[in-house]
């Protein structure tokens, strides 16, 4: 048997989480370094996965399969395709930055020495989330995936509810109440989605007799497994609902701004850049593969919802007063693009959507983390409390601007490539949707530049005057992310090479071909 690379990649952060949690309370710094070490080790393993993966090879590679619960045909089955590899790499890449950025977020409060903030727990939970997310990108067994999909809510719940943003308006009690509201809302939304998915998972088992994604998909493809149209549609809706909550898609989005607003910036990055990607990833992997016909059937409705997400999210971002909530609504808009790309059912759209997941992860991380640095300095999340920051902290303002420009998909930065692919891919099949989505690029410019103008330019506000510029630790976080944004914007080929074959498979799953150019079609 070959080396179980995928299992190890997911196990390393899990082990790291346990060890980090076990560090004695007094050795706080040691726990941080330990967590960082394990996240870096995971990154190395993820790099190994990327290297071992052959783009031209089988659809699922590095597979592992062990019996787990024989009575129900549940297996511990892992395997990655290009999309999984890209997202594993993204996750493994972002976590060290998240840990570094949150270095002091869970320190005990100086003012209230009595209140013990469990530093160890913070970093252990982050690693735990990483382990679960990575394993969910690897799982090819529907039941295994379901368990992970639900289980990752637990550490996330504690991360949101237990470690809130220290910058808040109002009293501590007020903040604690809002935080717990956000955490409970996050949990409830996702639990409801998960429960509906559970029903669909059981339904799938009843129909198919096992949980193996590869087996079911194969049986569906060669006609051995017939599903009644209505059954397929109900099952599809069950799965899709859960993923749409997690993604999040309008109108199931309202948990995200609360959660991202109340959580610390690194946790907010964890939510939107890592955990939410499981939702869109699962749409590509499970919805399209298991229920191709139902996916095609639901496409018009989903495209409308995605368009609403794009425009609605962007408009709401314009109206926000809180920096982090603004970024959250911007993310909703971006998730609209991802879902649009997935369900446009063209190669460009789906490649674009996959690239978008990676690029959005990096760009939001960059923007959100800088915003977090800014907020931690001034102690306020309100846009109105800032002004003229670029005069006192030019590097901070510069990196914030680059993060913002990435969010508005400036050509030359990575998100442009993916956004344009999604737009072209959508336009090729649904011209009106393509044009509506294009208005998103104007609105993105609006909310980003308004944010930048109000916080960074203009006369220097008195409270802002003494803000320090970025520290070396913060630069270590932000510079690699920006370098990556530029690199993937100028030379996205390494990523597209991995993603393209997977998209080809998905396209043949849903039995769709790209529309031919009019000129060729005429000939």
């Amino acid at each position: 048997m070959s080396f179980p690379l995928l299992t190890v990649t997911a196990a390393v952060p899990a082990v790291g989480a346990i060890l980090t949690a076990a560090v004695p309370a007094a050795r706080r710094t040691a726990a941080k370094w330990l967590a960082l070490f394990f996240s870096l080790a995971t990154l190395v393993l993820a790099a190994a996965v990327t290297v071992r993966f052959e783009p031209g090879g089988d659809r699922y590679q590095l597979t592992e399969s062990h019996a787990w619960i024989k009575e129900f045909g549940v297996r511990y089955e892992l395997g990655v395709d290009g999309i999984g590899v890209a997202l594993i790499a993204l996750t493994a890449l972002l976590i060290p930055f998240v840990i570094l950025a949150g270095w002091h977020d869970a320190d005990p409060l100086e003012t209230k020495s009595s209140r013990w903030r469990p530093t160890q727990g913070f970093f252990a939970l982050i690693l735990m989330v990483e382990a679960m997310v990575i394993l969910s990108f690897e799982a090819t067994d529907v039941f295994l995936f379901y368990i992970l999909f639900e289980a990752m809510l637990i550490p996330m719940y504690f991360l949101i509810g237990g470690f809130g943003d220290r910058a808040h308006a109002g009293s501590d009690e007020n903040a604690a109440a809002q935080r717990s509201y956000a955490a409970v809302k996050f949990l409830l939304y996702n639990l409801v989605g998960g429960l509906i998915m559970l029903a669909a998972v059981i339904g799938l088992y009843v129909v198919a007799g096992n949980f193996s994604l590869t087996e079911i998909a194969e049986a569906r493809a060669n006609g051995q497994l017939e599903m009644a149209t209505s059954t397929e549609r109900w099952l599809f809706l069950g799965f899709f609902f859960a993923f749409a909550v997690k993604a999040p898609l309008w109108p199931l989005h309202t948990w995200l701004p609360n959660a991202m607003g109340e959580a610390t910036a690194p946790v907010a990055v964890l939510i939107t850049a890592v955990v939410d990607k499981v939702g869109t990833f699962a749409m590509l992997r499970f919805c399209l593969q298991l229920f191709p016909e139902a996916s095609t059937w639901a496409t018009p409705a989903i495209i409308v919802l995605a368009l609403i997400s794009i425009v609605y999210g962007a408009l709401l971002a314009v109206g926000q007063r809180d920096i982090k909530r603004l970024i959250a609504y911007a993310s909703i808009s971006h998730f609209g693009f991802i879902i649009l790309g997935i369900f446009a059912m063209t190669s460009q759209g789906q490649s674009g959507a996959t690239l978008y997941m990676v690029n959005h992860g990096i760009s939001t991380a960059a923007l959100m983390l800088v915003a977090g640095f800014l907020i931690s300095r001034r102690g306020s999340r309100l846009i109105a409390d800032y002004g003229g920051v670029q005069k006192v902290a030019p590097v901070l303002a510069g990196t914030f601007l680059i993060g913002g420009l990435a969010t508005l998909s400036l050509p030359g930065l990575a998100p442009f490539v993916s956004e344009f692919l999604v737009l072209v891919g959508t336009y090729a099949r649904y011209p009106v949707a393509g044009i509506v989505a294009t208005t998103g690029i104007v609105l993105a410019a609006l909310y980003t530049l308004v944010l930048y103008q109000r916080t960074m330019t203009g006369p220097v506000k008195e409270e802002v005057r003494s803000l320090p510029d970025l520290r070396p630790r913060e630069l270590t976080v932000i510079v690699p992310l920006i370098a990556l944004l530029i690199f993937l914007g100028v030379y996205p080929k390494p990523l597209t090479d991995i993603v393209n074959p997977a998209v080809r498979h998905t396209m043949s799953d849903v039995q769709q071909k790209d529309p031919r150019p009019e000129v060729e079609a005429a000939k």
Partner: protein
Amino acid sequence: MENAENLIALLVAAPLLGAVVLLCGGRRLDKAGHWIGTLLAAASFVIGLVLFADMLGRGAEERTLRSTLYSWIPVEGFQADIAFQLDQLSMTFVLLITGVGSLIHLYSVGYMEHDERRRRFFGYLNLFLAAMLLLVLADNYLLLYVGWEGVGLASYLLIGFWQHKPSAATAAKKAFLVNRVGDMGLSIAIMLMFTTFGTFAFGPVLEATGDTSEGMLTAIGLMLLLAACGKSAQVPLQSWLGDAMEGPTPVSALIHAATMVTAGVYLITRSGAIFNAAPDAQLAVVVVGAVTLLFGAIVGCAKDDIKKALAGSTMSQIGYMILAAGLGPIGYAFAIMHLVTHGFFKAGLFLGAGSVMHGMNDEVDMRKYGALRKYMPITFATFGLGYLAIIGFPGLSGFFSKDKIIEAAFAKGGTEGWILGAVTLLGAAITAYYMTRVMILTFFGEKRWQPAPDPATAPGVEPGVEAKPGEMPHPHESPKSMTIPMILLAFGSVFAGGFFGIGDRFVNWLAPVTEFEHGHPPIGAAAITSATVAVMVIGVSIAYLQYGRRPVPVTAPRGSLLTRAARRDLLQDDFNHIVLVRGGEHLTRSLVYVDHSLVDGVVNGTAASVGGLSGRLRKLQNGYARSYAVSMFGGTAVLIAATLLMRAV
């Protein structure tokens, strides 16, 4: 020369390197930064000259160079390359951009001397050069789009260079947003091309225009026109250009006069094959050009801010170019020719304006100038030559290029031709009027100088003003680094037109790329030329009678309704404010409310009703062991009854 195409990438790379070095280099480059920037801009110009010499060495049909660096976005059914194409049209732009660009770099060394962020300014300027060169060198529309947004970014950064001024930050944001609306047009055009032709490289698209319907080409053309309107400040997306004058003056000269704003003309000329096959789109282009031509000219007449008056003029002159480009093969070459000559004289005029402001405590109100010709002789001379060029004084640059456009407008034929010809002639008269006004207000008449305002109370004042509040200005000639570029540009303003125009030299140079047909105006060329000169003289005379013969009040008189409207950019901004800004604010506010109370409300309502239900159920848990026992017995009884019932059935 062997492998000249390898040099093309260097053209872009040199300023890009400068931008990276200057922006990432940190403070240790503060001392030398401006020279690094200038040197790399000049290096790019030298490479351009080498390539130009190389191009001249080849026959007219073999002059196009291509170079593919690598495959940019390789995705199934989608091919986007980083690839360059250098033909005569691109070459013209390369020389204009790098030539004028280098001069303005040099000028900025002096102009920005006292600004502590000078290094960053040069970094942005280099970034602009790189993006602009990418725009004109790209061999496909997607890469052009990269350059297109790149110059937008550079323009955003430079307009807002003095970010601590709220007006500058707002102007920068406005420019970027309005441009984004135009960019939307470009990206939709690219999508249309992709679905129609399966590619968006210039070559295949422009060759295949015959294979598709006219309706599709019209749609593409209109979308390209939208893009051009955004970038070139044409009606209805013109409103950002006036505000863009918040940027430092060298920026106004380079970006908002000579190069970036002419990108729209480049786009339309480059896509000539599409427009030629879509007469409706062409008509739209011509209409936009004609309307903007008059719009800009009228705005230019009313502004008292010297830079804003020049901005109105820029708008109007680009209107000429767009109009010419909309005329098809009879106009493309003249559009580009006017673009080049305009690049010289308008850049010269802006630099002159900058030089005046430099000497006058950064005062921009022309009503507070006057009699400056004695104090700033070089500025006066160069500005004067630029002035003569722009009004089309016979023999100078503007005369040749503008006259050709007017001829081409008449040659459009039919009623359209007469209307267009009349509009262009009217525009020429107004141009002469407002430029004479600028000239008289600034350099002639009485001194109307005012003490320097207090920056604390006058937020519109440019920073870096050395004068103390209340001090009278001491006009003085600018340093050499500023006057030399002005002199060189004045040289271009005088001779470029003659050099290009006589013997159709420029037309023959461009013809292989843009196609060329001789237009045949319904009246003789000589008659048109004399008409042009005549309206110019009329415009100058009216301005002289109005401003040269009478003392000019320091505060602007109330003016007629038209004047007041023109001062407010013909109410375009008010319209934008009421419809877009206010409307948008209401929309977002109500959406925030909807999100909070409706979308979230439904969910919260569900949660509340579940909570209420559980509250009622809770009452059953009263803590009395007996009531639990009752429910147990009851439950057991029900179960037994059910079992028996099932048996019985």
